[in-house]
């Protein structure tokens, strides 16, 4: 369309809207991505404060601060909702997905920019509704799984649970619209020569995640609507008195809930693949295997849901099936782990901050993964179900692994996003403090669970005191790490070194490193051609 000079002139005045309108009405994938990341950080502060309150209460036996046990249950519930729907999903999918996917595939923006805007603002509205749920009446003390009958009008009679349901409806609509946007963008707007089999693995991960959202969220929406009418309009989908069944809710919830786990962790896989390749100065090992492993994980993720229901009294043959199906997931997951190691094998490794987080992710995901193999066995699970062993397991794969991937992505791409590089020393310190903190916090929870300590209790028998105190000390260390993150953030944005287009050298081969830093308001206005690049 234009030669280099007029192209540069065009960039000089980007038609960039200014003021509040730039953000409120934004249709720009980078601005929307930034808003998602800001929302994720704000929600993380709220959700993290809640976990801080939980660990403070549990630091010693007896009741220290939280005398209202309903409030304790509300904390547990809100912590789960916020971390899942308002921290990890917007951070990895809405944030990095929006920012990086169009840059990586050479698209000028997302396919439906206005829909992108409403995706974000629906999520912001959902967060407001979630806060209102917490402040209404005695709050939703149901756990994030919202099992009836506890979540029925008989046992949660004020509007708190209704606000929670409406919040999840909006968050779900936001996710489905976002998923449609990603699928359309990725399938139709790739650079010339970028076939599906040459797409960067982060783009693959977002594509698979988008399909999971598209298939899982409507099931959640249906279940939520049934619960809403049970609560308000006299239906009895989940009440045995009216011919319904509380177990039906669990089937529907976990049909969504298990894929949701992969919705959170697949984008993390994508981020880690990019970083491991970049800092090994090698293409990803077994690229096709990596891509199809994600598809396999996504597919199997839909047929294992009842392993969350090992203790509800399902038929033994049904449980046997779910044991087998669940264990199968370990195979493609193993392929991912070994391929990352093989990518590093023979490489020329640099240990900048993003790589430290990626290495931490790989190891700690293995730790969380192998306890998942233990839990998959419905027989052994009778010792672990609903104990702190489960809490430790899913915090290793989510609170540790997914969050490590978010920090890895932050350090990897902050230069591209802000034009300023993070301070390396502080970044590494942030990693080490967090690494120590989360392990001190969560590893002893395996012991508590094996000894029999149930989840979701505000006070515990005195024998559990020791490891609970250790776990709370770990939480305090993690809190210090989090404060350090904010110092890093402000130092980067305020005084970070101006960064070149590609600060990582020859290992960083994806297209986002070909545009200047910070990435201009409009990028890839001419479709790039990657036919000349070697396939991975």
């Amino acid at each position, binding site marked *: 369309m234009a030669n280099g000079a007029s192209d540069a002139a065009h960039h000089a005045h980007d038609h960039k809207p200014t003021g509040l309108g730039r953000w409120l009405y934004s249709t720009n994938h980078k601005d929307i991505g930034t808003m998602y990341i800001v929302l994720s950080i704000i929600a993380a502060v709220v959700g993290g404060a809640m976990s801080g309150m939980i660990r403070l209460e549990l630091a010693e036996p007896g009741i220290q601060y939280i005398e209202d*046990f*309903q409030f304790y*249950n509300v904390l547990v519930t809100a912590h789960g909702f916020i971390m899942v729907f308002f921290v990890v999903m917007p951070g990895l999918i809405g944030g990095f997905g929006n920012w990086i996917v169009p840059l990586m595939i050479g698209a000028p923006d997302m396919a439906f920019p206005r829909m992108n805007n409403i995706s974000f603002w629906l999520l912001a509205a959902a967060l407001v509704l979630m806060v209102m749920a917490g402040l209404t009446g005695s709050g939703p*003390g*149901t756990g994030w799984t919202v*099992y009836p*009958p506890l979540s029925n009008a*008989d*046992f949660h009679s004020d509007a708190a649970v209704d606000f929670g349901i409406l919040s999840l409806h909006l968050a779900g609509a936001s996710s489905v619209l976002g998923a449609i946007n990603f699928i359309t963008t990725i399938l139709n707007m790739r650079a010339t020569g970028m076939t599906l089999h040459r797409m960067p693995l982060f783009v693959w991960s977002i594509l698979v995640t988008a399909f999971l959202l598209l298939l899982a969220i409507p099931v959640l929406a249906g279940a939520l609507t049934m619960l809403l009418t049970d609560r308000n309009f006299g239906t009895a989908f989940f009440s*045995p008195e009216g011919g319904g*069944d*509380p*177990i039906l809710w669990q089937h529907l919830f976990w049909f969504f809930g298990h894929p949701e786990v992969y919705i959170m962790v697949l984008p993390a896989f994508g981020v880690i693949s990019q970083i491991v390749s970049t800092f*090994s100065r*090698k*293409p990803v*090992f*077994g690229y096709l295997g990596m891509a199809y492993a994600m598809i396999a994980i996504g597919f199997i993720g839909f047929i294992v849901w009842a392993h969350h229901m090992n*203790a509800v*009294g399902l038929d*033994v043959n049904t*449980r046997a099936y779910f*044991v087998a199906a669940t*264990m*199968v997931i*370990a*195979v493609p997951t193993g*392929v991912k782990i070994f391929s990352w*190691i*093989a990518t*590093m094998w*023979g*490489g*020329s*490794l640099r*240990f900048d901050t993003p790589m430290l987080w990626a290495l931490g992710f790989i*190891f700690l995901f*293995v*730790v969380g993964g*192998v*306890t998942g*193999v*233990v839990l998959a066995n419905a027989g*052994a699970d009778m*010792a672990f*179900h*609903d*104990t702190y062993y489960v809490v430790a397991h899913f915090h290793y794969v989510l609170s540790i692994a997914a969050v490590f991937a978010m920090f890895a992505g932050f350090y990897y791409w902050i230069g591209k996003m802000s034009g300023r590089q993070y301070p390396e020393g502080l970044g590494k310190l942030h990693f080490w403090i967090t690494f120590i903190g989360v392990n001190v916090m969560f590893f002893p929870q395996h012991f508590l669970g*094996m*000894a*029999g300590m*149930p*989840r*979701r*209790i505000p006070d*515990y*028998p*005195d*024998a559990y*005191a020791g490891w609970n105190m250790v776990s709370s000390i770990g939480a305090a260390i993690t809190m210090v790490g989090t404060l350090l993150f904010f110092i890093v953030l402000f130092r980067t944005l305020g005084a970070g070194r101006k960064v070149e287009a590609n600060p990582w050298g020859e290992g960083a081969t994806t297209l986002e490193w070909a545009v200047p830093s910070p990435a201009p308001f409009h990028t890839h206005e001419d479709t790039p051609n990657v036919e000349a690049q070697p396939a991975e």
Partner: protein
Amino acid sequence: MFKRLNVFAPILALISFVSAGSAVAAEPKPWQIGLQPAASPVMERIHDFHNLLLVIITLITLFVLALMVYVIVRFNEKSNPVPSKTTHHSVLEVIWTAVPVLILVAIAVPSFKLLYFMDRTQDAEMTLKVIGHQWYWSYEYPDHGNFTFDSNLVPEDELEEGQKRLLAVDNKVVLPVDTNVRLLLGSEDVMHNWAVPAFGVKLDTVPGRTNETWVRITGEGTYYGQCSELCGVNHGFMPIMVEAVSKDAFKAWVAKAKVEFANEENKSLQIVQAKIDAK
């Protein structure tokens, strides 16, 4: 403990030490890092199976850690300035797909055995009905005159010497040892979960359903558990306390309990009977 020793003898011995270090009482101990000692055949098998799993997952984790340490030491920028361009190795890829499959099959076989063994008992010698309520348990003995009683937490300020905070109840369940007990579980309000770790029993009580499982207690003593499904405000305050006694002691207890916990409908009759006896 010795029957567990096999090819993994040294490792298993260490684990057994860790997981069954205090084999006298079945209750959580300070700084415990393993499962509670087994007091039923189901829990014994869970111990055995978990010991196998723990070895496997520990070896896998250490293997990955060793690979990562090797890669970090051997292939860093200084030791290996020029990266290789290898991105495929079919044999390797087949191996790291096939070997995990074999490991999983090795896990699945004992896993299914355990699952089917623990499901329910074919030859129950008696039945105990457990009903969950917000926030206490009630128990019924249908084979012994169908008496029933509630079991409530002993509040902290009423604890007597030797009673455990948050675990002690006013009326404990009494069961005979070496007897196949069928457990029938139900709920009056929301879902609860009746769990006693030393028995390897953990099953939801679901309104509108009756769930079945079983236990055969192998040793006399007191066993503790807690509600294991979030059930509302006082979820953390509805413990389970089981006293396992000899069969004779159980008979004696039943005779006493029949009077003490007589059903509402025959309570007056029994009081009349007691008065006649007194005369």
